[in-house]
């Protein structure tokens, strides 16, 4: 009997990101899947050791191309903790609004990827269009579409422009107004449910064992969310819900994402309402070229759109970090959970499952 090895990626339209899965196939069933990352490995953690604390911001956002903002956030948080810097009150709110915007954009990107994977062109186009609307808001705020480099240790680079919050609310209403359309054509489409339900099941026990985080865990009924457990920025100022699902299949993961996205929009509204009208957005930091940070190590974490994002950082008292190590959610999802979830599934569902786990390749490779 001849074995068949199929290559899913890197040059494959069903692969979002530069990642490769080698599938051992029997019939159309996957016997064994082995993830093959590293196509995007740039050695960020090594490179960051050679740049100063502030120089690292352009690098750090490029770790995750889909959602660079949480990467900036986690790095800023790490530096703040090591240097003992506090963020001013308004700065915290601006940061939270910024991160929730990023979460919505990232989830819309996820919707595009998922819809595209099932050949659902119409929804894919809509989602990408709506993400573009949000990117316009980012552009207005930061001057860049994708890599914003807006956060800095001690706060944010600049305050909201005049009338920004109104335009943001308007944009979010525009996107939110299409949610019923999305529901009708996408989330509640019977054919779509047939494709996504009971596929790539990761039940709670497996998820806990394999260290899953984020919506993979939320889809199994665990409301594990760093924003609740270890609130940072302004998240302890507002109340919000963590939406969970029970079944743990691709469909419930997607619904968990949808609910989180809608909740995020509501959170932005709440944050804007509660935001102090005046105030500093950034604490003053020393001259970046001469800035040294006392020796020590820190572990900080936040909730990115894909789950718990952690950073272990060591300083030796110099002007550069001594060691930086990111704990990205896709790392576990892509290398451990994905391999297990793919076993025994059909080859038609590889992309389906991968996107439902929201594996972002550059985050794995770093």
């Amino acid at each position, binding site marked *: 009997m001849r074995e068949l090895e199929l290559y899913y990626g890197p040059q494959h339209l069903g692969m979002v990101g530069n990642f490769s899965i080698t599938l051992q*196939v029997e019939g*159309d069933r996957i016997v064994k899947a082995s993830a093959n990352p590293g196509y995007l490995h740039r050695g960020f953690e090594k490179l960051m050791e050679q740049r100063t604390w502030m120089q690292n911001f352009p690098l750090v956002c490029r770790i995750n191309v889909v959602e660079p903002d949480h990467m900036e956030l986690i790095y800023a948080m790490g530096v703040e903790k090591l240097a003992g810097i506090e963020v001013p009150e308004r700065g915290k709110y601006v940061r939270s609004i910024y991160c929730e915007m990023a979460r919505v954009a990232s989830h819309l990107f996820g919707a595009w990827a998922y819809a595209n994977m*099932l050949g*659902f062109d119409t929804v894919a186009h*809509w989602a990408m269009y709506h993400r573009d609307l949000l990117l316009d808001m980012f552009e207005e705020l930061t001057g860049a579409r994708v890599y914003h480099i807006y956060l800095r240790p001690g706060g944010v680079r600049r305050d909201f422009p005049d009338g920004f919050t109104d335009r943001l609310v308007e944009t979010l209403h525009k996107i939110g107004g299409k949610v019923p359309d999305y529901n009708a054509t996408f989330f509640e489409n019977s*054919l779509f449910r*047939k*494709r996504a339900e009971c596929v790539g099941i990761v039940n709670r026990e497996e998820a806990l064992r394999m260290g899953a985080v984020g919506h993979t865990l939320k889809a199994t009924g665990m409301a594990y969310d760093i924003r609740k457990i270890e609130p940072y920025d302004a998240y302890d100022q507002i109340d919000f819900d963590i939406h969970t699902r029970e079944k743990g299949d691709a469909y419930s993961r997607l619904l968990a994402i949808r609910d989180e996205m809608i909740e995020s929009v509501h959170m932005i509204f709440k944050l804007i309402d509660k935001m102090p009208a005046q105030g500093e957005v950034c604490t003053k930091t020393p001259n970046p070229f001469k800035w040294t940070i006392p020796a020590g190590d820190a572990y900080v974490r936040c909730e990115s759109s894909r789950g718990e994002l952690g950073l272990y950082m060591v300083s030796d008292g110099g002007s550069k970090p001594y060691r930086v190590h990111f704990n990205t959610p896709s790392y576990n999802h892509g290398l451990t959970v994905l391999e297990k979830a793919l076993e025994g599934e059909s080859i*038609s569902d*590889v992309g389906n499952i991968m996107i439902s786990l929201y594996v972002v390749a550059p985050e794995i490779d770093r």
Partner: protein
Amino acid sequence: MNIVALIVSPLIALITGLFFLGLSRKISARIHWRYGPPVYQPFIDVMRAFSQKSITHGNFFDFGIILSLTGTIVLVLFLPIGGLWALNTGGLIMFLYLMLLGPFGIALSGAAAANPNSSIGISRNFLLALAYEVPLLLILLAVMTDYNTISLVEIVEKQAATGMAISSWRLVIPGIAYFLILPAILGLRPFEITGAVQEIASGPIAEFGGKHMAFYTLQHALQTFVGIALFVDIFLGGGTLFGLLNSLAGTVWVDILEIFIFLLKMVLVLFIGLFVNAVYPRFRIEQAMQYLWKWPTLIAFVGLVIVAIIN
């Protein structure tokens, strides 16, 4: 008539088929809130493909694609396009068998390419074909039994006398069943399983490039044409329009008008099909088979039982 048809009907089919491909891209673009490519984009694509230097995996790789295109062209000769048909031998059975040559040729070619993606695509293609053939055979048998002939031309001619087949209550049931399986025959979205790019990298045509790709596009265009044209011929009365053209009978205009009416009917069918396909993801192959063997087959079976009892 026959000699004219021999030259004209493949040309009409080819041009209309490519135009349909462009039209379907345009229409889906509009559903996506986009502007979309020009309608003649497939022509440019074919031209571009022809000007590229492709690779071949041996003579059999070439043979397959040639067989496929030839078979589909010959298939078109059997289709009455309005009052235009070139061949009428063997009837619908011959037609059914010739419908097989297109996918069969692609299958041979794809397999000769030694790419498992192609092989998986072909296996899906054949399974899908088996799935939609079951209702299709029931439908065609109902039609053949109802008219008690196996000749496609006679069917069209008898419809011309009585109006559309779908307006008679016996054949409306098979007509509905045919419309349900039409996306599967055309390979449109819920059934776009064969060449699912996100799953198996465009399936059978994974190794096609250059002129092979151009030939495949032409074949695909013809296949699209045939799928819709068969529906129009069997159920919508071909090029006739409820006897409105009777006053012009005997002139050349009738023939030309009939062709136009035929094409218009086809565009109508295509439009409806596309609106359906825009809001669906693709099936998994076993889901497609289960669907096709459930409702369309049931409806077609009921239709055949009714027709068989009446005869």
